[in-house]
């Protein structure tokens, strides 16, 4: 199952996304590209929970980075 998700730059940082893609490399196939106001994430996984965990992870890292 491949999903395309737009992550707004206002909330999600590029560094957090890069780190999350690296951290989840063994669980899903993910790539991203850039739009003016968003990162466009393409994630392929057989398990919806992996996608949910991915999104939580990138949100957590982005929050840590922005609130530092």
């Amino acid at each position, binding site marked *: 199952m491949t999903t395309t*998700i*737009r992550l*707004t730059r*206002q*909330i*999600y940082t590029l560094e957090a996304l890069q780190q999350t893609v690296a951290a989840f490399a063994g669980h899903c196939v993910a790539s991203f590209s850039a739009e003016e*106001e*968003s990162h466009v994430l393409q994630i392929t996984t057989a398990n919806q929970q992996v996608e*949910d*965990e991915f*999104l*939580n992870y990138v*949100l*957590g890292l*982005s*929050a*840590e980075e*922005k*609130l530092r």
Partner: protein
Amino acid sequence: MSADWLDAEITGDTVALTVDERVYSVNALLRTAYWFTDRAYIFVSKPGERTLRVHLKAKAPTLDSPHSTPIRDLAGEFGNSLLDNQLREAVEEQTGKIRELLVMKAIAEAGILEDSPPGSPNDPVADVQHTNLTRISS
């Protein structure tokens, strides 16, 4: 199903909340979302110029947390927590400098900073010249 008082849409085990950026800051939202990531899966989108949409999906019960909160209650708690964080930000803005001054005064009065700073207060070049030169006297 909708929860009008919260501007939320509930679909199955998921709820979507609309957050007005004129009322809540991004930092307050991030702080709140961060604290809820252990209880729910969270995704934030930006559907409009001044609005953010928070999607919450309740996590399945685990051995560590066997009781899952109903999604409607979770949305309510999220809203309360968001308000709490926003208020903390406002209070910080109003009283942050006074608090800093009080802490600095307390530290100064306690004499914690009375130790002399490390190193020599002398001119380091003069120190080096003084120690490395050998005086030749006839």
